């Protein structure tokens, strides 16, 4: 099963390499990974999506908690949560394809953020499966480049991950 694990950690050199190293060392899988400082400059928030059975994910969270730089760990998928990912996708767009891409884009509430006579660059925000669906819906349009941010997530309601 896919899990979204959020990690609050010290914003210090080497902290990220400990997390990434842990996954490699213990043979855990990383689907996506994002990391950036929080409103408190001494803390970073890292979100990792991984696939594993309950036992593996339990080990992942326990092992993450053991890292000295890690302050808090939560498996967002255990509760109600929101996940988002940003994708920018560059497409060949000429002739009648331009209109077709534009309408697919509207359906998915994507934005065209860069235009040349032969290309469109589309920005799309959403859960990862929506981004996948958009790529599938593009049909015959030819994709030149895709860049995805990786997933970040937050719990619904009052629940917060903070100190």
């Amino acid at each position: 099963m896919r899990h979204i694990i959020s990690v609050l950690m010290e914003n210090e050199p080497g902290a990220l390499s400990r997390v990434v190293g842990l996954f490699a060392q213990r043979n855990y899988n990383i689907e996506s990974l994002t990391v950036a400082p929080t409103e408190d400059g001494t803390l970073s928030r890292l979100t990792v999506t991984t696939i594993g059975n309950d036992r593996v994910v339990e080990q992942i969270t326990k092992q993450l908690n053991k890292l000295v730089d890690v302050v808090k760990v939560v498996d967002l998928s255990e509760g109600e949560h929101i996940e988002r990912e940003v994708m920018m996708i560059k497409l060949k767009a000429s002739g009648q394809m331009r209109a077709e891409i534009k309408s697919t884009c509207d359906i998915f509430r994507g934005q065209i953020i860069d235009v040349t006579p032969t290309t469109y660059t589309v920005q799309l925000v959403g859960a990862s499966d929506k981004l996948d669906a958009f790529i599938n819906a593009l049909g015959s349009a030819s994709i030149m480049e895709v860049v995805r941010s990786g997933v970040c997530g937050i719990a619904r309601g009052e629940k917060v991950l903070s100190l």
Partner: protein
Amino acid sequence: MVVRALKDEGVKYIYGYPGGSLLHVYDALFQQEDVQHILVRHEQAATHMADAYARATGKAGVALVTSGPGATNAVTGIATAFMDSIPMVVITGQVMSHLIGEDAFQETDMLGISRPIVKHNFSVQRPEDIPGIVKKAFHIAESGRPGPVVIDLPKDMTTPTERYPYEYPQHVKMRSYTPITRGHSGQIKKATDLLLTAKRPVIYAGGGVIMGNASNELIELAQLLNFPVTNTLMGLGGYPGTDRQFVGMLGMHGSYEANMAMHHADLILAVGARFDDRVTNGTDKFCPTAKIVHIDIDPASISKTVQADIPIVGPAKVVLEEMVQLVNASQQRPDAAALHAWWQQIDEWRQRHGGRYRTDDSELMKPQQVIEMLSKVTNGDAFVTSDVGQHQMFAAQYYKFNKPNRWINSGGLGTMGFGLPAAMGVKMNFPDDEVVCVTGEGSIQMNIQELSTCNQYDLPVKILCLNNQSLGMVRQWQDMNYESRHSQSYMNSLPDFVKLVESYGHVGIKVEKYADLEGAMREAFALKDRLVFMDVAVDPFEHVYPMQVPRGAMRDMWLSKTERT
């Protein structure tokens, strides 16, 4: 600042080897007398000495090695300590900060190299941070589940002409590191209730009892309930080896009665043990009828390989203490008749195999006889360090450890070359106690250069070499699994160990007949102020038994070359 911080931490000995990036530190060491430096002959030995000090005392040992090859030579020692959860602080020199990343002379990325084998590591980026980092390093190494910590120290952080404010912190507070200090009372109560209803209980106690200083509490609880106790390789000495309730070590080379009792138990109380693959054998067949209570300070050790029914995260000492109080306060006791029947069953198992071995199939001595003699001659009171292989298993099986912190071996990593430096590290700190390194002719040669260090610092350790002229454990596996094709497991170019140790200024004794063994051993131990190397010729064809059948249950064992359960 580094030396001053070590002094303020109360460090008496550090083990190391100088080099370019540490010259400022070595100069500072030269100009004071509080922190004594022991010069080894290879950095691996420095880490093992520091590690053994920690195993014997529970306090972090300190090693100091230079950048590049000095640091990489220390890697095996750091990994050894990591696998066995041993507190240690290793200071590695580093090239000047402005050269880092430029492939400078003797530069290695020690933070990167050590990351998977340390509890934590630090890189010093401002000299004024040194006292705080040293304090944190000791705190992290010694608290919670202990482990090694590396401090990487660029040379320009120690420039003697620069002065910085120095204050050694009294306390450490880290929001991201708060080791647990007690167990969950509800869980402890639940577990104790289960203990009181058990009919076929076994206490399975590991290295956490040793490093957690929980031996007395373990003994109290076990004797209060009259439960059998088995120790892991790392836990030996945690429960007295000569006590009736002790059923021996468990696992791959565990005793017949310990493994049988585990398999048939209805309750297993695991304390400071981690259900390692060398203990559980096939996890799918592990102890099918048992409920499992697991006490460990590291939540990640619980339900990692075997699911615990009642997990308790906390220090073994505190949790066991609480259990003893609850049992004392309760009217209830385990069903006496059931427990009596259980003990009868265990004694029957004990009778049936109970560490028997043949002595009639060889002219030469049996390694088991040698260890039994050692146990007799030293009354089970010596510090015994060991290397890795058959001799290690024989020592674990046949030496009756009555006290904790006295059996010092590389259990998790299985590091050959550990024994001699470990013995030195112990002797240095316990000069009045007997310290014996049980080794083989293979392992001893992995760090034999340290005989020179022993000479320099007058370390009269005793070395008991079970010489079977082959890598015994490798050969045993080849006998059992590879139709006796002894690929690279035979050593036919051995030195004359007696002459070799004599050249280092020590005493060597060769023993070839069992009749001479006791006399030779007593003679060796009588030479209080000399290092004595006993080169004992043992049967090269002997195997370690019992041996669990791979991927079987706990009870599936070879009991000799021909008998199987």
